[in-house]
């Protein structure tokens, strides 16, 4: 209750939502439940005399109307569901059961099996909608407004303090009108662009301490300091990704500020989504060149062996988990690889326990068993993988055809799939060249180009030797040693024998062998990797390694097969452009602001797309606004961040729907050390969040059910295109995301006098958003041919719904590769076990290796397990004792496992001896629903709506799962509050000292809960919770009820700190190359190097070690132990009855208990 003086009864009486409800009640006879006369001695409960009372329930469930909408949080489901409205209020939300009605242009239909798509989050959406934590009207930070009124003076140290840029979290907010907000934001943006443009701007930035590479990257354009993030891609292509359209329109601002020609104009930087959330499986582009492999979930039913590797399909794929349950019913085998015995393990035929982040070693061990036993499909290996390709043992590069054959001319045809379908250009071909194979028949090298895969390769007559090593004479007359990758792997895998792998991973040997055997003998198999893999620094290697058994067995491109990455959703690729259809998604976000098409009848293909923006990974902001530059003993100051990734200084941040600051690993470091240098932070959201609390502007967006015009989304795990609008009027003074973006653009038009700013959102201003939507449909390979009106009329299923136009149903990644012999999206056209990328070679990752983490390891940080002479890592002369995070990141050292076992991580020695897993909770989606009371109550052992213990920040409390023995050894009882600390050198934030009040705010304290499912050195807390802030800490320490609820309506899940107290950003060099050749995200074409959400720095929040110390007693009010921990029924304190129960003692049938 928000009004403390109002009693619950009064509240109930006063808040009767409507008069109609009362009237309806009055129509009912009041004596339904009463026997009219006393019947002779009959128990009234024994019979069922009168059913009239059922009318009451029918009345309760009655509604005036309903509407269909799409629940579009950042999950992979996007369920279309129904809101039931009574008197203008959504009273309940229900399912549609219409999966079977979805169809496509060609009459293909989905299956009824998709029905029942809905989870508890969607069911409770109206609690968010009508709940007390909404952002209700535009707000501006008081200090920012004063800065604006002072004419945006340069922010010196004194002025930062004066206007509270260095303490945003303590400032006040003022309500303003939308017009005022747009005007302020436009003027602020223009002032920032002006200040940081040109020579003067560069000089000022240098004075402020930015590294020259970042300043140079700006190319003199102040607009490049403006960063925009269209929150969680494709959750709304128009409203959310419209942010990038706004970002591209800043080219107009640049022209206004610098007076440059349009072709020289530079817009803002477009911040990524998935990679920054650590959701990508970053190894995928290294193996097959595609951003990520993902399949429709109804493909799971075809799998006969499902391997969940660090993936929890039970808790995190709720709406569609039934597909994997179904494959259990169909007799498939389930295997789970994870450190803990978790929810998916309960479904598994066997669970392989592993030490965290050693999965790459496990897969290398499995691969070795398979190769040693000849458990592989030789034809597939030869046709589709790089195993037969020759590698030079001197340079570690693949042997190019041009090196061997004098005057080599490639046979790659202009009519092959590389050129006709995949957009492979001559320039790219010239840079990459062709490759070589040892022909066993001819006993000579043979050239292969990238179209020579699959059947085409088989037809070529080449007889590739798999296991070859020998000398080859080059065209220049010299002789070099070469070997097939296969031959090299046979050497490489000597380090990964079964005993060693069991020792590295702590997995039982028999289960490793069993897994190898199952993969070899069962078809099809699918491997699903999730956050449990992707949130580690060396996820790249674990992803690549999991593909090795797939490559050996050809389990790809077929129903039920594949290796998929499932942490997030790589949805942007769903709206794929092509030469045939047009610019696709880019036609929307990157329409040329200098060549706007204002004809509503224009076909989407004819939109001129030109990106004046450049992608940027927020990870750099998140790293102290720094690229990865290390002063190395051997090579001096070395820049590891590729030019294609290079960030610019961050002076303005615009986000929508992402809760950026809350979700920033190392959030307190951002709040304390980085954001004071940012001059404008604009956050659009439906709710009051920690990000809004630390912004200059909070702009309330309409929720999914309040949308006033159309929005569109699709998912990577189902085939549905979903278009919808809201069905109720906005509750507050909020706007559709796109209307907000258009408003900002219009205000920029006023400030600059450039009408094109207004025109850039012309159809939004005119209320004809559908024009943009039709253009999008026109120009994507997956939607071309659809007419918006038809879709909305229900021609292809429920109004607004239809099937995406995929090649197969279910959508199967790499179907074309396997069935049509199209090349994989790599330079060789084959799946890669080996990489000759220079960064990979420097990192010692040309072969797939297991590396200990740069932080989360008991051993030497970042060490490579290898004695292979062809693994030649560059350590840049950095000593083994170096402790700086960036030094640990780039120090590449290889050692055999026996040597590694003798080493020790300095952090481990300092008492940081727990891996800290931070998986997703089933009760939230990222940070959505993290303040819905019902979910909080379910989400932990400490949920209590009555809040008997006033220490609870809300009605629930975040908890740290801990092995009872480990907790006991530290004197921590079940339910105690504990401090969780990571490396004090950099966390919670750089420069933290216990005397700083902000240290208290940011140091993580939460409840410990005993959980025997976790190994001794592993603790777990769920991520996606709402962080404690300056104001929530003040609130819980001063409010009579102790809630962590601020006056603005933000409520935290923690008393102090958050999961972000122990996380930080890590700049992974393998994520920052300029050289990796791979498919671009949203168009049929290739790129080298960086692209947001595709090949960019992935955040890796699990990469940390923590120490745990007791903070307070867990008992009520901090006195004594937490009672449920002492009742004999809880982990670590089981009484005899509980032990008997756990041993199945009560389930005995017929025999002895």
């Amino acid at each position, binding site marked *: 209750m928000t009004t*403390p003086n109002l009693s619950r009864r009064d509240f109930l009486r006063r808040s009767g939502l409507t008069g109609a409800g009362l009237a309806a009640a009055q129509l009912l006879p009041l004596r339904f439940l*009463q026997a009219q006369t*006393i019947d002779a001695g009959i128990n009234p*409960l024994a019979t069922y005399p009168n059913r009239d009372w059922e009318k009451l329930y029918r009345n309760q469930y009655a509604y005036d109307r309903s509407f269909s909408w799409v629940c579009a949080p950042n999950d992979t489901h996007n369920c279309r569901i129904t809101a039931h409205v009574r008197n203008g209020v959504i009273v309940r939300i229900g399912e549609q059961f219409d999966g079977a009605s979805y169809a496509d242009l060609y009459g293909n239909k989905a299956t009824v099996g998709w029905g029942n798509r809905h989870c508890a989050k969607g069911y409770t959406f109206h609690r968010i909608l009508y709940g007390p934590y909404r952002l209700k009207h535009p707000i501006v930070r008081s200090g920012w407004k004063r800065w604006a009124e002072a004419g945006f003076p340069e922010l010196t140290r004194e002025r930062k303090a004066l206007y509270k840029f260095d303490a945003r979290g303590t400032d006040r907010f003022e309500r303003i009108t939308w017009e005022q907000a747009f005007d302020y934001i436009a003027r602020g943006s223009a002032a920032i662009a002006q200040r940081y443009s040109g020579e003067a701007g560069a000089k000022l930035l240098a004075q402020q301490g930015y590294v020259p590479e970042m300043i140079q990257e700006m190319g003199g354009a102040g607009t490049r300091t403006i960063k925009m993030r269209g929150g969680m891609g494709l959750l709304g292509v128009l409203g959310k990704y419209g942010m990038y359209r706004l970002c591209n329109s800043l080219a107009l601002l640049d022209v206004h500020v610098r007076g440059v020609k349009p072709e020289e104009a530079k817009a803002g930087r477009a911040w990524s989504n998935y990679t920054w959330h650590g959701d990508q499986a970053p190894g995928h582009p290294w193996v097959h060149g595609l951003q990520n492999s993902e399949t429709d979930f109804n493909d799971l039913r075809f799998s006969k062996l499902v391997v969940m590797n660090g993936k929890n399909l039970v808790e995190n794929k709720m709406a569609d988990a039934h597909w994997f349950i179904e494959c259990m019913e169909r007799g498939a085998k389930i295997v789970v690889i994870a450190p803990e015995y978790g929810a998916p393990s309960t479904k598994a035929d066997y669970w392989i326990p592993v030490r965290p982040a050693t999965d790459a070693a496990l897969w290398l061990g499995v691969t070795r068993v398979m190769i040693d036993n000849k458990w592989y499909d030789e034809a597939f290996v030869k046709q589709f993988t790089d195993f037969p390709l020759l590698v030079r043992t001197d340079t570690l590069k693949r042997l190019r055809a041009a090196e061997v054959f004098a005057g080599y001319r490639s046979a790659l045809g202009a009519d092959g799939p590389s050129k006709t379908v995949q957009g492979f250009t001559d320039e790219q071909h010239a840079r990459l060249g062709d490759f070589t194979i040892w022909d066993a028949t001819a006993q000579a090298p043979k050239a292969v180009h990238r179209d020579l895969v699959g059947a085409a390769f088989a037809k070529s007559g080449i007889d590739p030797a798999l296991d070859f090593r020998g000398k080859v004479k080059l065209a220049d007359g010299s002789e070099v040693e070469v070997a097939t990758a296969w031959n090299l792997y046979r050497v490489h895998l000597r380090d990964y024998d079964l005993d060693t792998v069991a020792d590295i991973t702590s997995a039982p040997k028999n289960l490793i062998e069993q897994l190898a055997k199952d993969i070899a003998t069962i078809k099809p198999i699918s491997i699903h990797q999730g956050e449990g893999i992707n949130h580690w620094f060396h996820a790249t290697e674990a992803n690549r390694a999991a593909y090795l058994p797939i490559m050996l067995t050809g389990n790809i491109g077929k129903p039920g097969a594949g290796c998929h990455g499932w942490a997030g959703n790589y949805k942007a690729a769903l709206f794929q452009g092509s030469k045939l259809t047009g610019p696709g998604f880019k036609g929307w976000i990157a329409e040329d602001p200098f060549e706007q098409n204002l004809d509503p009848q224009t076909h989407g293909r004819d939109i001129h797309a030109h990106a004046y923006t450049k992608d940027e990974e927020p990870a750099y902001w998140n790293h102290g606004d720094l690229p990865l530059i290390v002063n190395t003993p051997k090579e001096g100051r070395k820049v590891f961040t590729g030019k294609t990734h290079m960030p610019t200084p961050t002076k303005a941040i615009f986000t929508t729907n992402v809760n950026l600051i809350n979700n920033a690993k190392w959030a307190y470091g951002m709040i304390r050390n980085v954001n004071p240098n940012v001059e404008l932070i604009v956050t659009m959201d439906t709710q009051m969040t920690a990000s809004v609390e630390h912004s200059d502007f909070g702009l309330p967006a309409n929720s999914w059910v309040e949308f006033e015009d159309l929005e569109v989304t699709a998912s990577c795990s189902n085939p549905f295109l979903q278009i919808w609008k809201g069905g109720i009027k906005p509750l507050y003074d909020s706007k559709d995301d796109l209307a907000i973006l258009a408003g900002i653009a219009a205000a920029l038009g006023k400030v600059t006098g450039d009408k094109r700013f207004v025109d850039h959102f012309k159809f939004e201003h005119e209320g004809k958003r559908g024009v943009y939507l039709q253009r999008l449909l026109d120009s994507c390979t997956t939607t071309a041919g659809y007419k918006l009106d038809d879709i909305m009329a229900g021609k292809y299923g429920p109004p607004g719904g239809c099937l995406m136009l995929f090649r197969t149903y279910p959508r199967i990644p790499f179907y074309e590769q396997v069935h049509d012999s199209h090349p994989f999206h790599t330079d060789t056209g084959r799946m890669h076990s080996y990489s000759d990328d220079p960064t990979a070679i420097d990192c010692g990752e040309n072969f797939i290796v297991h590396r200990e983490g740069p932080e989360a390891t008991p051993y030497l940080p970042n060490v490579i397990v290898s004695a292979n002479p062809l693994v030649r890592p560059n350590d840049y002369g950095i000593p083994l004792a170096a402790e700086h995070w960036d030094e640990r990141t780039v120090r590449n050292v290889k050692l055999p496992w026996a040597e590694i076992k003798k080493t020790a991580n300095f952090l481990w020695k300092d008492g940081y001896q727990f891996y800290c897993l931070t998986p997703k909770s089933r009760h939230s989606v990222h940070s959505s629903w993290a303040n819905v009371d019902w979910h909080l109550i379910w989400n932990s052992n400490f949920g209590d709506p*009555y809040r008997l213990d006033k220490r609870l920040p809300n009605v629930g409390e975040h908890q740290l799962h801990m092995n009872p023995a480990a907790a006991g050894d530290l004197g921590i009882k079940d339910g105690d509050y504990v401090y969780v600390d990571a490396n004090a050198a950099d966390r919670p934030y750089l420069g933290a000292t216990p005397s700083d009040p902000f240290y208290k705010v940011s140091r993580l304290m939460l409840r410990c809960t005993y959980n025997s499912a976790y190994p001794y050195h592993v603790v777990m807390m769920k991520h996606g919770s709402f962080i404690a802030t300056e104001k929530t800490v003040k609130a819980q320490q001063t409010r009579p009820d102790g*809630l962590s609820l601020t006056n603005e309506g933000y409520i935290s899940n923690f008393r102090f700190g958050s999961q972000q107290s122990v996380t930080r950003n890590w700049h992974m060099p393998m994520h920052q190359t300029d050289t990796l050749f791979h498919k671009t995200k949203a168009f049929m074409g290739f790129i080298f190097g960086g692209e947001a959400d595709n090949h960019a720095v992935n955040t890796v929040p699990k990469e940390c070690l923590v120490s745990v110390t007791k903070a307070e007693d867990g008992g009520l009010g901090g006195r004594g132990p937490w009672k449920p921990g002492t009742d004999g029924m809880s982990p670590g304190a089981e009484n005899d009855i509980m032990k008997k129960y756990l041993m199945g003692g009560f389930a005995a049938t017929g025999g002895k208990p």
Partner: protein
Amino acid sequence: MSTQALAQATAVGGTAAASETAPAQIGRAVYEQHCAACHGANGAGDGPAAVWLYPKPRHFNSGYFKIRSTPSGFLPTDDDLFEVITRGMPGSSMPSFTYLSEQERREVVQYVKHLSASVDAAGKRINFFEEAVTKGRTPMSISVPPEPPVTVRTLAQGQEIYSKLNCFVCHGLTGEGTGPAAPALKDVWGLSLPPRDFNTGAFRGGHTGRDLYLRIATGLAGTPMPPYDDSVVTPEQRWALVHYVQSLRRKDVEINDILARVDGLVRARRLSQPLPTDPAGPFWETLDPVRVPLSPLWPETNSIPAVAVSAVHDGTRVAILCTWRDPIANGAPVRAQDFQDAVALQFSTTGRTPFIGMGDKDNPVNVWQWKAGWQQERGEPRPDVNTVYASMHADLYFQTDTLHRTAEAAGNLLARSEYASPVEDGNARGFGTFTSQPPSGQNVAGRGIWRDSHWSVVFVRELKSPDADDVQFVAGQPVPVAFAVWDGENRDRNGRKVVSNWLKLQLDP
């Protein structure tokens, strides 16, 4: 009244065995009306009420009788059984049946004996009492020597014997029934059975010296209490032990309530002055209340032993005051684990004395229950969820209009957000049949006040009610009435309560 039983006997005659004599028919009729609900139609201790009672009703088919004057291993005498029916078993749900005539009680004794039978392996029914006669084991009382005077010496001797016989192992050193073996004690049917708490002074088989002497000498069949016959203690020692056990009584006031002789009549004086409706009014002090002993249906510590009842009328309305001691007032329940204080009057609407447990199918009862919580709902300050849980928090309450408060919308009297009266007026024909009268029939007013650790509750109603289900009061015509009290602090609710036996309310002309 014998007439009532005879009428019943006639009524059920059709089902009685043709060979039954008229007296036997009376015994059966009385048993079926007043005993079978608990003890079961065939005496198997399995009547429908048994599940709600603890200790469980005796199982006559077992042949075990606790209260006997006969040696261990023998059946009780007719007088033993008669005494139990007459006295009841104080502190348990077995009431005193003094409202039955002596003849009825004696016939019930015979019927109970008739039911005390088992079936042998051959399927032959064997009556224990008949078999005892044929085997020459006719029940005979043991002789009880005259009670000697109590002296300090005999008390000391008693204490010594108490220790020597290990009485403390079950009954505890101070006699409160908390000896080390107490938690593990079970009866022959495997049910936990706490040993007697001597501090209360209440004994199932009577509290006189002779009663206790017999319990010690003959034991309590079916329980862990063994006989201590002359081979173990002498009669003199046994008397010393009796006196020592009696000296352990502490709760004199309450025991006086329990043991007070009740004449079974509550007289309502006719007043010429205005009827006092204020429970705290000084007028009530001028009356001498009837003290009505109460027995728990489910034993609990500190159960309320008695309620004091006064009644007056003015020719139009009757006012009945109930006062009882309850150190903690429990009002409207807020938490799931909360219960409210309450008191109820149960009237026979036929003038006959029906089964004490909420009447029976031929004799409906009219029940008035005053509830502390309902009274609080009527505008008094009352705790609510957010006052009990000062820090509670919720996002929002959905659908809080009347329609969505289902029970209230359905007209459930108990779910109303406001009450016309704190007294619920309802009817029952046996337990489990209690039904509220419709709102239009709710015509009993009432008010309670809690002060000085006592509740005083006044019920007021017109003497004549137009409602056919209501009890009618006519001067000079006694109405059977019984009382029940609920102690919220003791988690009393519904059938978990303390109850009186039948009394009569008679209005002076």
